[in-house]
């Protein structure tokens, strides 16, 4: 189940990656440009000879002119590997493989050394990969130099020991002590066996070959399938590094199969649709993004193109969206998977069905004309019975020469989805406001849906709005588009969408506002109207603003639903806020300085009056003590008072309360002392005066 699910997922993916699911395009220029992008050597050379080979092989198949420096650097590393005695069978194998394309000169002595080393490796091999690299290396040497005498002495023995890895289900193991079997290994084994057969000095026993044939047929029984007919091999997902993925696995099997089919005279009896299914698989992945996958795809397609089992042919379509209005003709190309020429053949349109219905074919069987210049088969003008819409066309390919039927395989019939488009006539469009009870027309206006409209209507909740139009196909039939919406948008951006229904050609929608007040959230005001008519087959799909309607709806009752919140514009949500500056308390109002000074002067006047008064009273200092001690105390007392007053002045000017009080404390004590002395002296003096 999980496996099937996985397969389904891959299918989904393939569908999503490649445009139309059931259409396969042969390799094109997009592959060529992708190849140049993917196989870019860093600093002039590839990381390994394997990558070098893959790049060279891909360029060779795609017919991309190799850059000379690529070959030169490849040759250098090939000759290094070949010359070195420490290189393993794997290194030698890939060096020789790369050399089969780069065609560098390998000196004879080195090649003799390799032959003996590879021969030793064959006899010492214990795992499938050992056999694969050593036998593969020998085959490559044999192909590259005609003089070298390369053959396996005990070919049949080697054959049997490789055969020992095979499993009953057609899969193979990598070595005898590894129980995991895989289809990937099967591909490698087949390639190895093909190599052994070609290296054998004597005929290999036919019974051995036919057991391998059976193995191949069993292996193909385990092939997996997508809905679109693509076939592929996949191994169980195991944790080990051996899991390769469906692309590598399928590619490996195909390579093995091609190699094996090439060396055996027998027919492998594989049905051609299997090969076509494999071709669909490789074409279905479009352009892989990985160099290894890319190589596997291209190399496998090359195998499919040149194999002896059957060569699949692919129908390709430059366009499957013909337009009736432009009188497009339907063009079909037939090519091999790599897009090369095919023998002469005829493409027939055997049926056309309206998609979704299983009715009888809409067209008679007819042959397509072959246009030599473009190499395409052309259906001139679509049949009369085909109107706009989507159809499934069924094509059949007939090869002209019967012997080609053995070599090529096309599949019996190919179904292709075709959508026919055209200009749809929009007529008799009008909009009207109707009185509800009588149905009498209040105001009716014609619309020009192709141009601009600025209709303004007004209605209240007792009235109705009617919009109607007609759609006709180029063949004069009625047309029902997928999208026919009338949109009313209130000023507050609340939108209401209505589907415009039809009866025959006539499309009509009647909006009864009485039933819609709740839906409209009782929002009166201006509604913009917009009509959208669109369909895949309609070339002139339209989105027109009709104008606006002033709706006068009743007041909303208390429990009426509120309109949904409308999205906030993201641009206005952010952005700087308005600056705020603090408004400071304004300072208190003060009188002008002159006024203050004037009043200052006034405050001094009483003092002056006091002084004048004293003088007028004839104040004197006759009581001032005459004896030195009381006189000293008197002086000190007044100095003290003066000091306290001065301290007050200082308090005003600079001192704070604490400093002032401290000083005042000292001065106070001093004043009390001297004050007591002088005052008691004065009191004693005046008492003496009274008693006297």
């Amino acid at each position, binding site marked *: 189940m999980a496996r099937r699910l996985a397969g389904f*997922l891959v299918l989904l993916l393939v569908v*999503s990656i490649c445009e*139309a699911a059931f259409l396969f395009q042969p390799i094109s220029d997009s592959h060529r440009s992708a190849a140049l992008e993917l196989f870019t050597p860093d600093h002039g050379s590839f990381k390994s000879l394997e990558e070098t080979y893959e790049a060279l092989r891909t360029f060779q198949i795609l017919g991309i002119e190799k850059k000379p420096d690529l070959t030169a650097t490849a040759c250098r590393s090939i000759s290094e590997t070949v010359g070195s005695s420490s290189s393993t069978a794997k290194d030698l194998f890939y060096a020789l493989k790369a050399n089969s394309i780069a065609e560098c000169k390998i000196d004879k002595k080195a090649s003799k050394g390799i032959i003996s080393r590879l021969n030793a490796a064959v006899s010492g091999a214990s795992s499938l990969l050992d056999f694969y690299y050593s036998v593969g290396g020998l085959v490559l040497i044999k192909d590259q130099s005609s003089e070298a005498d390369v053959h396996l002495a005990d070919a049949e023995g080697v054959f049997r020991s490789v055969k020992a890895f095979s499993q009953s289900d057609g899969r193979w193991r990598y070595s005898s002590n590894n129980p995991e079997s895989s289809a990937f290994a099967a591909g490698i084994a087949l390639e190895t066996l093909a190599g052994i057969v070609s290296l054998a000095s004597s005929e290999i026993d036919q019974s051995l070959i036919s057991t391998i044939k059976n193995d191949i047929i069993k292996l193909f029984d385990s092939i997996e399938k997508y809905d679109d007919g693509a076939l592929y091999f996949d191994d169980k997902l195991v944790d080990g590094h051996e899991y390769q993925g469906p692309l590598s696995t399928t590619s490996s099997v195909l390579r093995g199969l091609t190699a094996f089919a090439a060396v055996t005279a027998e027919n492998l009896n594989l049905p051609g649709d299997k090969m076509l299914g494999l071709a669909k698989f490789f074409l279905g992945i479009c352009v892989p993004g*990985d160099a290894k996958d890319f190589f596997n795809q291209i190399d496998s397609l090359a195998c499919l193109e040149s194999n002896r089992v059957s060569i699949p042919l692919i129908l390709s379509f430059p366009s499957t969206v013909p337009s009736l209005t432009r009188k497009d003709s339907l063009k079909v190309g037939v090519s091999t998977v790599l897009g090369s020429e095919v023998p002469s053949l005829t493409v027939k349109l055997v049926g056309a069905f309206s998609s979704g219905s299983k009715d009888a074919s809409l067209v008679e069987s007819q042959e397509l004309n072959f246009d030599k210049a473009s190499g395409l088969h052309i259906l001139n003008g679509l049949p009369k019975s085909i109107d706009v819409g989507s159809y499934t066309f069924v094509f059949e390919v007939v090869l002209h020469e019967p012997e080609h039927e053995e070599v090529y395989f096309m599949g019996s019939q190919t179904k292709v989805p075709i959508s026919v488009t055209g200009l749809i006539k929009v007529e008799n469009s009008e909009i009207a406001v109707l009185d509800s009870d009588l149905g009498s027309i209040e105001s009716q206006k014609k619309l020009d849906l192709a141009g601009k409209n600025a209709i303004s209507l007004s209605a209240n909740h007792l009235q109705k709005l009617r919009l109607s139009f007609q759609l006709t196909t180029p063949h004069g039939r009625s047309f029902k588009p997928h999208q026919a919406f009338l*949109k009313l948008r209130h000023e507050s951006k609340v939108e209401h969408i209505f589907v415009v229904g039809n009866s025959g050609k006539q499309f009509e929608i009647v909006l009864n506002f009485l039933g819609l007040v709740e839906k409209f959230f009782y929002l009166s005001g201006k509604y913009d109207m917009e009509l959208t008519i669109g369909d895949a087959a309609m070339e002139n799909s339209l989105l027109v603003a009709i104008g606006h309607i002033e709706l006068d709806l009743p007041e909303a009752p208390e429990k009426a639903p509120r309109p949904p919140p*409308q999205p906030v514009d993201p641009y206005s949500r*952010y952005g700087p806020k308005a600056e705020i500056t*603090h408004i400071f308390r304004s300072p208190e109002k003060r009188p002008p300085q002159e006024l203050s000074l004037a009043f*200052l002067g006034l405050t001094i006047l009483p003092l002056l009056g006091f002084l004048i008064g004293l003088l007028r009273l004839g104040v004197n200092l006759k009581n001032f003590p005459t004896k030195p001690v009381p006189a000293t105390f008197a002086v000190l007392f007044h100095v003290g008072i003066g000091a306290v007053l001065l301290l007050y002045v200082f308090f005003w000017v600079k001192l704070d309360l604490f400093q002032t009080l401290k000083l005042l404390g000292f001065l106070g004590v001093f004043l009390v002392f001297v004050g007591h002395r002088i005052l008691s002296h004065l009191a004693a003096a005046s008492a003496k005066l009274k008693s006297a």
Partner: protein
Amino acid sequence: MGKLWLICIASISILLPFLCNAFSPETPTDRRVLVLLDDFAIMSSHSLYFNALKSRGFDLEFKLADDPKIALQRYGQYLYDALILFCPSVERFGGSIDVAAIVNFVDSGHDLIVAADVNASDLIREVGTECGVDFDEDPSAMVIDHIGYAVSGTEGDHTLIASDDFIKSDVILGGKKIEAPILFRGIGHAVSPANSLVLKVLSASPSAYSANPKSKLSTPPPLTGSAISLVSIVQARNNARLLITGSLSMFSNRFFRSGVQKARSQTKHEKSGNEQFLTEISKWIFHERGHLKAVNVKHHRVGETDEPALYRINDELEYAVEIYEWSGTSWEPYVANDVQLQFYMMSPYVLKTLSSDKKGLYSTSFKVPDVYGVFQFKVEHQKLGYTSLSLSKQIPVRPYRHNEYERFIPAAYPYYGAAFSMMAGFFIFSFAHLYSK
């Protein structure tokens, strides 16, 4: 051998906490991304996108979504910094991952890219809902646009959309204008108007609608017009960034390489805008753009350099902060002219735009208001596409001390004069009273 193991385990346990934290201004590099796929074939079919990420230094780990061994965290530590869900049809994640685990992953500040597709599973829809977007509920619905479709020779159902209705934000989409429209095929989603964190990056055109292209419409589709979002982003409050789209194929090599011609337009673009659009937006998602940090917040009285413990009302002060933006490799000065400072107590008393020296330093000066209390310096910088900066620093403001008031007020001179003339009078009177005969 045993010793080696010990060393290994010890070093791993020491390193582990440093390896896989969410994006943080302290360790902004070293990012590991888990990519969950429906099928490994996506690795090759979407390789251009993955390679673009790898070339920017991301360490991608590809896993099947139903692999029983996948986990986002181990021993309480997250193993990855970001998650890419390229598995639209997965019904159940393998291992310990479920929707709650993904939500927690995002809640702890990690980034997420979700690509749904037609027939997206309920699980992926649920992830979308958690992210704040609602995919069209009809499982076979697609976004259809009969006016804004991409012209194609082999497709007639107008589900391949060429959209060029981008959000206008250089930080999200890069400074270079995206010339070519974006190819999109998949499902649309709606952004909840109540959610202010979700942004529509790529919207459908007004003529688009979301419906099953194969069946007739009898009721109005739930999503129509430019309310349909094709690609949305979310920046969570913890600065985790999310990308949600209804199309997996828009990331594919085929769409990256494909040319595009919008219907009714004569210009044919050699290459669709997908590569530029998705690469630029991935830079934003992975915090290579628009991630700000603020350092060196300084404030002092004008003419001083030390930061006081408190200010007096009516002080003149200077405030400065340095703001940098992460560029993927280094912190670059952030240049903007709308960074604002608030002097805040219950409500802003002063709100001022900081002036920039274009090297990352933002500064301003202002007078402390004549209101005392505990204020805050607040920089709340929220800008479309940028991480939100929220700095606040508390600072008390005191009133004048008793000796800081004006001491010699001319208007009071008459009072002073009266007092001093009184004192002088008293001094003279003391002589007159004591010694006069």
